[in-house]
């Protein structure tokens, strides 16, 4: 489902230039859960950004659901992200002016989003136990609640690929554990 072939990526410029990915190959099949482990600065986040079409490799090929990501226009990459990829960021990146529910529904409102998003969003909020705080703004939510909303947002358009960049990195063990389990039992499998 996701194939990466000989990916290279250099970050920084001039003296600060550093090759963080050098000939990375990767193949992930549908319903597979893969964890990428490595030291800080080893290029884990950079790899996720490349796989999700947020950034472009210096060389190499990426194919997602049969569609090549490399060499595509910004508009085409945006469409692929909308329909095939869901992101969960380390800092959750919830939009501060929107309530938790609105953050979940936001991707369903984007031009070109697949239908049925509103229903799926409501179901996700319900299944993740967020109904009571659905109207709360991000700064009114606990870290665990924020993470679950971020997770619901990543899943709401039924993506084939969910990329989570250290989703429990900013949570303590108590808050992080339930999220890890909810990720493992994610409703994504149903879609």
């Amino acid at each position, binding site marked *: 489902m996701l194939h990466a072939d000989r990916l290279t990526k250099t970050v920084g410029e001039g003296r600060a230039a550093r090759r963080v990915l050098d000939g990375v190959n990767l193949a992930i099949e549908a319903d597979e859960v893969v964890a990428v482990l490595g030291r800080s600065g080893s290029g884990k986040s950079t790899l996720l*950004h490349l796989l*999700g079409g*947020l*950034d472009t490799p210096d060389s190499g090929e990426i194919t997602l659901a049969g569609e090549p990501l490399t060499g595509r226009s*910004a*508009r085409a990459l*945006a*469409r*692929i*992200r*909308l*329909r095939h*990829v869901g*992101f969960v*960021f380390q800092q959750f*990146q919830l*939009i*501060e*002016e*929107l*309530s938790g529910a*609105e953050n979940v*529904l*936001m*991707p369903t*409102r*984007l*031009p*070109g*989003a697949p239908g049925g998003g509103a229903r799926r969003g409501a179901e996700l909020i319900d299944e993740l136990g967020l109904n009571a705080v659905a*109207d709360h*703004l991000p*700064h009114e939510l606990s870290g665990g609640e924020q993470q679950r909303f971020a997770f619901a*947002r990543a899943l709401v*358009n039924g993506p084939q690929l969910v990329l989570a960049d250290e989703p429990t990195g900013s949570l303590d063990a108590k808050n992080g554990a339930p999220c890890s389990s909810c990720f493992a039992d994610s409703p994504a499998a149903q879609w």
Partner: protein
Amino acid sequence: MRAAFAEARHGLQLRLRRTLLSAIGIALASAMLAAALVVGDGLGRGFDRAARAADLPDVIVHYQSQPVDKVDARISGLPDLAAFSARLEVTDVGIGSGNHQRGDAVAEVVPGSGRRGYAVVAGRDLSARGAEVLVERSLAQSWGVRLGSSFYVDGLGPQRVVGFTEAPDNVGYPLAKPRFYVSRDAIDARFGRETNPNTNLAYIWLRDPRYLNEVLVQARASSFGLRNIRFATRSGVRVLLDQAAGIVIDLLVALSVIALVTAGVMLAASARAEVQRRLSAIGVRRAVGASRGYVALTQGLEAMLVAVPAATIGVAAGVLATYGPGERLLTLLNEPGPGSGLVLPLVLGWLAAVAIPVLGAAWPAWRAADRSPVGLLRGGGELAGGERGRGRGGLGSGGLGALGARLVAARRTRLVATVVTLGLSTAFVLLMLALASALSVLETDPGALGKRYTLTASLPPAATSQVRAITGVQAAAPRYEVQAADSFSLGETIDVVAYPGDHTVFEAPPLVSGHRLRGGEAEVGAGLASALGLTPGSTLAFALPSGAELRLRVAGIVSSLDHDGRVAYIPAVALLAADPSAPSLIAVRTAPGADPGRVSSALTALGAQPAEAAGATARGAPLVDVLRTILRAVAIVDGLVCLYALIQACALTVQERRRTVAVLRACGAGSQAVQRLLLGAALALVVPAAVVGILLERFLFGPALAKLAAGYATLPLDASVAEVVATAVGLGLAAAVAVLWVARQAARESVVTGLASS
């Protein structure tokens, strides 16, 4: 200090694009400020400057031609006399220069010595050598007359142009007839010396102008035997000037004031927004031990590094845009340009344009630095505690547009400042459109002033029945008009208009208060009522040129732009009883659909010289053209200010919400979605600004300007529906340009970089 300077410079280099945007804003505001100063200073102080330069006399007396010794004897006896100069004014003189020629010039024959009453702005004054003329600067400019060139005068032959003059007691060519000066010595040299030449014009200078009224009383008393005597005072000259130049001078001064207010609001809002955006950076400085003063100094220096070059460019651009048209306008008014007198106001304006952003940046930084560094680091850079958006349903009900609006609304102070700036600019644009319409109407449509007659015919009252018999004439009546002086304030001249019967058939200026005149009553213009403190029921007393005095009860106050509203409508029977020889024309009102040209031909056949009734500024077409040029220049700057304010607001929103935009893009939002987001943000600014602008124009600026421009008349300055729609469309276009430009910039940034921003 050096460290702060280096940090400020480094900060600017890091934020080059935003620095450029701020610089553009400051430059635009400075340009507006400079334009306002040039126009305001030039027009507001032009008359006083001209009067001082020309040594304008306190009293100007016109009378029927008299030998000079007869006049000298009378004037010499006046109290408090400092100096006087009796001279001859000759009208309808044929002149020519280059390819130009006219047969209606005015020549002023001035004595060889004594005070002049005009300023020689180029070349030198007349000498006793003869065959020399001084030409009004406006005429010289219009005809391209050069110093030393030949100037043909009927009866005198070719004369050498030795200087150009300005005198504010008359407006310049082509607003008025061309005027030139010749020396009495030159006339004597050509035609032989006259021992007692005739004069018909006297300039009188007083030692103390406060005794003007007493001098006028004495002058009238001693003028027995002089016919057609007319007095004009400095204040009267102002009135004459206004008569020719129109009310637009006051209007432009008012527009300049509005421009200043708009520029100030925009600069302050821009500077404050910049500091608000960088609160977290201030928190970092405080956390590492920087003092409040250092934080404020760094911010102030950074603003100064941007403001100094931007304000310099802006001021220069504003001056370049308006100085030329302003000079042309002043030349038409026979007033000197501000010259070096404008340097100080411009320097002060430049200082203001630099100081406002510097103080605007330093003061919020000073205040912000007083907050706890922890608080600043936690959220200061993203959202101030009191400004977190609390709205609900924005995304659900309006999608990305609503989110954009909510992002803008989260910065309430900036939202208000931007809406106020845009609203003021919108109101300003509406006002200019309304003003342009009002000018056009006043220029071309006598009906706008309540004049219902379309033609006048130079025929005696006895010919009225013949005129009425002409096909196409609906009504005709003798129209008497004389210039009188107020009995108690002789410097106040009054245009007295009289009709036999109902004057509203021919002239129906809008009634402000009271009622229409009945027998033995008068309607007075609001300007006269204001000057003399007249109200319905009070008594109007004035002296006619014949010396007779009339006293009439004031029936009502009317709006009239003629003679600055210093007019009085009275029954003809009252006027003729006091002065049977009062001059008259026949006013002709044509029937609806009738061809005025045919009526005019029929009047010519009767031996009359028909003339069309003119609007208030009809003779001032060149002046109106200049004014339109100035208005256009100011309007263009104003439109750019609107565009800048919108771009800046959108750009700042995107800049502050880089992460939000990046999250949207990470979730699959394309450029179209970002445009929708920004459109919502722009609409949140534009829609209330349009409402504010329309309301401001309709209920504040329009009425205030109309009052300021013409307290003596009701000047309709309400923008029409078409003007409102045109302005709204313009605002919408500016919003569209801002959205497209900022969205394009936003799309260039990497999503990953946006996500990593703090």
